[in-house]
């Protein structure tokens, strides 16, 4: 018995984890004893820490080791204000705000440098905890710890063991729900794109520092909340609870459960709490054990429990059929919308690398409704020019105008936002996304929605996601690959990937489309299909600049060809003009070939 794709996509599967959560919440009414409830609370608190880490580490790709320090911040703040007489909801909010503040303070600098700097900064934070606690001894109780935290009260009502338990589970469910919504929203897709290919992310207009910092601060929030609950649970806060071994345990739980998942955090936390954290015989051996877990997990256990389950579900319980909107698009293909291309005008562009001049004052003009090809032998500067236009390189001299806007020297994500879209020599198709999601990822900046809207799945986000899907289906249909819409994109053959890249490039409604060697590696049929697509885009009004080595293709589809040689334009004109241009023949074939061609010309 397999589920159809339609059921899989449309059925509210989130009901299942929610139901499990509610059952767990109801445990005290089903006769669970106090010991069990304490155990479940420990699992819930660890799960909150791990689910936060998963956002930063699994989704955004930044290893943060400071969850335990942020946990501590939440606990101390909540504890302090609880002693001062504040209610549980207030102390919880304060703890979450404190967590966000710590996240901002460490994330700003920590995310500046390579992949390990955040890890080291946050690890340092964990080691710093005893000093900070001592330093603010008046508030934290110093090494003696913060004691005398009263029993939690909710709007003046004292909570007993049972009601506090219910409250803890409710908060855990709340955070899991918010974060689950966040990762299935467009923001989650954006994080995956950024993690897999920062270059692609920039070309789609994402601001990488901002995305990373947002994800990292979000990852701190559940840790803060967990801290506040911990303070009430124990009634006492001391820095020994939040040390190095806690930090390592959180990471180990994340890896066991599956870092790139939400529910995996609950699995990982449960396994760790029921297993090594509880067994007193293992107490002494906990550090070596966690160490081994990290080594083995890092080496062999890429997807964790959640990864295993997902794969199982996909292979065993899912039918490989088409969604209704895909079927509809196959039956009556939607028309290609008109594309509002703008004129690209580059003047006197100069780019040097060390002692080499890659571009020596290049002029280029590309108009709407035209295909402008850029050809030239290897090393002539074509890709450099494309990178200058799309903001991946900064020119030393010259200007680049798009329409009447000066875009010279804009960064890649700014250039993208001003209407430049591009494909890559090696197709950049991130892992873990469906074909439709790949196209949708280009609309993240075109129609932005807020993180909060994503977490709460507000109407704004729902509308945007519906339009994302519609746009994706439309473009995939125009490109003739709509039947793959719900397949994993990284399984596609190369030719289809290239066409998919073009679809993605169109999704942001670009004013200029840059195609970087789209035909390389394609067989003849695939090249033919590509040529049809490019012609249709041109007829729809797009401004297209194509860098390509396949001469036949360039000759057939281009309205104008510009020839680059040694960083300068040596010829330009219609395909027929360029093909017989002696300078072009020389640059490709050499001087003797030029002489032969000229001799042949004279004979005629």
């Amino acid at each position: 018995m397999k589920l159809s794709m339609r059921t899989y996509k449309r059925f509210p599967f989130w009901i299942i984890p929610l139901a499990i959560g509610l059952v767990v919440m109801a445990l005290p009414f089903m006769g669970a004893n106090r010991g069990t409830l304490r155990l479940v609370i420990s699992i819930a608190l660890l799960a909150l820490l791990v689910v936060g880490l998963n956002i930063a580490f699994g989704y955004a790709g930044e290893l943060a080791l400071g969850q335990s320090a942020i946990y501590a911040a939440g606990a101390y703040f909540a504890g302090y204000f609880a002693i001062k007489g504040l209610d549980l909801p207030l102390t919880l909010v304060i703890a979450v705000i404190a967590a966000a503040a710590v996240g901002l303070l460490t994330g700003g600098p920590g995310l500046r440098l390579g992949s390990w700097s955040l890890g080291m900064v946050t690890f340092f934070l964990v080691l710093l905890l005893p000093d900070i606690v001592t330093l603010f001894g008046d508030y934290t109780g110093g090494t003696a710890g913060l004691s005398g935290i009263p029993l939690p009260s909710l709007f003046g009502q004292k909570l007993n063991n049972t009601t506090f338990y219910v409250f803890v589970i409710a908060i855990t469910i709340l955070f899991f729900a918010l974060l689950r919504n966040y990762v299935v929203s467009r923001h989650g897709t954006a994080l995956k794109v950024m993690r897999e290919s920062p270059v692609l992310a920039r070309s789609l207009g994402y601001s990488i520092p901002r995305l990373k910092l947002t994800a990292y601060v979000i990852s701190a929030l559940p840790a803060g909340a967990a801290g506040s609950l911990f303070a009430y649970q124990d009634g006492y806060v001391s820095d020994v609870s939040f040390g190095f071994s806690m930090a390592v345990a959180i990471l180990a739980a994340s890896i066991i459960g599956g870092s790139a998942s939400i529910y995996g955090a609950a699995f990982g936390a449960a396994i760790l709490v029921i297993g090594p954290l509880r067994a007193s015989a293992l107490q002494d051996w906990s550090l070596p054990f966690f160490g081994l877990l990290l080594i083995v997990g890092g080496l062999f256990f890429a997807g964790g429990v959640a990864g295993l389950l997902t794969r199982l579900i996909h292979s065993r319980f899912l039918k490989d059929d088409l969604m209704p909107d895909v079927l509809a698009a196959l039956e009556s293909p939607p028309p290609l919308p008109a594309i509002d291309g703008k004129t690209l005008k580059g003047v006197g562009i100069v780019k040097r690398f060390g002692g080499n001049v890659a571009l020596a004052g290049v002029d280029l003009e590309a108009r709407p409704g035209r295909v402008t090809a850029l050809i030239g032998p290897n090393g002539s500067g074509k890709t450099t020019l494309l990178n200058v236009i799309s903001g991946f390189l900064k020119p030393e001299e010259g200007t680049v105008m798009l329409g009447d806007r000066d875009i010279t020297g804009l960064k890649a994500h700014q250039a993208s936002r001003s209407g430049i879209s591009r494909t890559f020599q090696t197709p950049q198709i991130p892992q873990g996304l469906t074909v439709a999601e790949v196209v949708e990822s280009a609309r993240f900046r075109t129609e932005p929605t807020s993180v909060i809207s994503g977490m709460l799945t507000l109407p704004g986000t729902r509308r945007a996601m519906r339009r994302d899907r519609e746009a994706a289906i439309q473009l995939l249909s125009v490109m003739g690959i709509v039947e793959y819409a719900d397949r994993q994109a990284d399984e596609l053959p190369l030719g289809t990937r290239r066409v998919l890249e073009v679809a993605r490039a169109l999704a942001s409604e670009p004013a200029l489309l840059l195609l970087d060697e789209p035909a390389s590696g394609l067989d003849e049929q695939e090249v033919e299909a590509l040529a049809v697509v490019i012609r249709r885009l041109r007829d729809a009004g797009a401004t297209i600049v194509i860098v390509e080595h396949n001469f036949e293709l360039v000759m057939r589809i281009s309205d104008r060809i510009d020839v680059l040689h040694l960083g300068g334009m040596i010829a330009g004109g219609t395909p027929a003009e360029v093909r017989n241009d002696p300078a072009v023949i020389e640059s490709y074939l050499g001087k003797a070939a030029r002489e032969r061609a000229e001799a042949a010309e004279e004979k005629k």
Partner: protein
Amino acid sequence: MITTIWAGLSVGAIYAIVAVGYNIVYIASRVFNFAQAQFVMIGAFVALQAGSVLNLPLWVTILLCALVGAVIGALEEFLAIRWLRGRGAHNELVTTLGVATLLSGLALVLFGSEPNRISYFSDQAPLDLLGGRVLFVEVLTILGAIVIAVAVGVITKRTMIGLASLATSEDREAGALRGINAGWLAIGAFVLAGALLAALGPLVGAKTFAVFNLGDLLAVKAFVALAIGGFGSYKGAAIGGFVVGLVEVFSARFLGSEWQNITVFVLLLLVLLIIPNGVFGRATGRTV
């Protein structure tokens, strides 16, 4: 005042040597070895055993430490790094953190959490040097750090193996085409860095005692040294190490001991914000 400077330099020397260890491994294999500082801890415990149980002379102990460090370094590369090649820096960070946890955890299991006094350099009177008081072992550490940083820097620039690691670091494929076996270089780097830092164990242990979590703060402070000096620069590692040591000791003296780690942390945040590539580091551009 001068005494404080001596103290800062002697602490900074330790950070400098660990930072040199980070660099050796980083240059040859592009891995940031989270567990690097744990090798000092290993050395300290080997020295503890060698001194109090076996009663070995100091020079034999240092050789023994280096040997143990070399073997564990090779094991780390072989078991926790080699298989991850090409799978991104994050897995390496997780597995080297795992190695660090495993090592300090084993030390905790074997020797307990109490600091242990090492028999070497234990009964020495401070010397008067340039108007400040300093222990002989501290002078030795400072000199050792300078000698090691300069020597490793010179070896890297002047010898074939050093050049080969710089070349591999720049372009692994082009290195292979010149016949450079990057796998052996990586093992060699882990062995050298492991041996060097473990050999330092007796000197450091004399000051800090042997304790299981000795490597933890060392790891982050040496990282600060590297962030200041710039990744891959030995000069930067040495200078960065001394700067961190001085900042730490001076803030402890003038602000109080609970400030000594916090000021270093603030220093790290500032460095990352203002000069993310470090003083002697080079910005690396990336294109499509």
